[in-house]
């Protein structure tokens, strides 16, 4: 009898997370180096300059992508830490649930900051 191995679920588990972690790492690393370089090159000390820089449209979009990538990266990273160290299933699921909700909340908050239009 033929057995569908893939349907059992384990064959591809983790591959997309593995790829996601590396792709997000490239963007996050590139953006951190860019932002740090920009701020070290010409330090921003006034509120007006800070706001104008951060809230310019290209920066808003780049930051939105950054936060999105950061949340994915954090999720995959924390998830693998939990999978390695939290052995009881209920504890792992609880911790992952809390982390997931927390990260989602942070993501929504970041979008409100960037596109909420209040300042």
């Amino acid at each position: 009898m033929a057995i569908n191995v893939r349907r059992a679920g384990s064959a591809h588990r983790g591959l997309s997370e593995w790829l996601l972690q590396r792709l997000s790492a490239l963007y996050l690393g590139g953006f951190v180096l860019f932002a740090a370089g920009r701020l070290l090159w010409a330090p921003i000390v006034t509120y007006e300059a800070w706001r104008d820089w951060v809230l310019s449209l290209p920066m808003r979009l780049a930051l939105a992508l950054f936060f999105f990538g950061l949340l994915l990266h954090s999720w995959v990273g924390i998830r693998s830490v939990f999978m390695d160290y939290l052995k009881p299933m209920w504890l792992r699921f609880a911790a992952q649930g809390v982390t997931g909700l927390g990260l989602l909340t942070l993501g929504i908050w970041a979008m409100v900051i960037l596109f909420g239009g209040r300042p």
Partner: protein
Amino acid sequence: MVHPTPRPVYLNLFQIRLPVGGVVSILHRVSGTLLVLALPFALWMFARSLESAQRFAAVQELVRAVPARWVLCIVLLGLGHHLLAGIRHLLLDLHVGMSRGGARLGGWLVLMLDGVVAVALGVSWL
């Protein structure tokens, strides 16, 4: 089948001397976890800094005051290590520095650059 040793085997991590790559790798984890824990505070300061000139000044003052200054220093050191060790891991994925000697060299390089970051932070910020 009977195994010669009882299984599962539990390793005593405190009896294992980690190679330098292992040290870099575990610090990658520790720093990553630290960075996630710092995220809510960072986002809070980011939000405040954009709200008004007064709040921007308040955030500036906050990060210059002593407890926050130290915490920020540790978080930035963690960021530096996470970035450096991450670059090493990406290079390993590309099979750069995969030999035993290369991996050791890369590990020591990351630790040395961590030291450079620490000194730079200490001189400019502490």
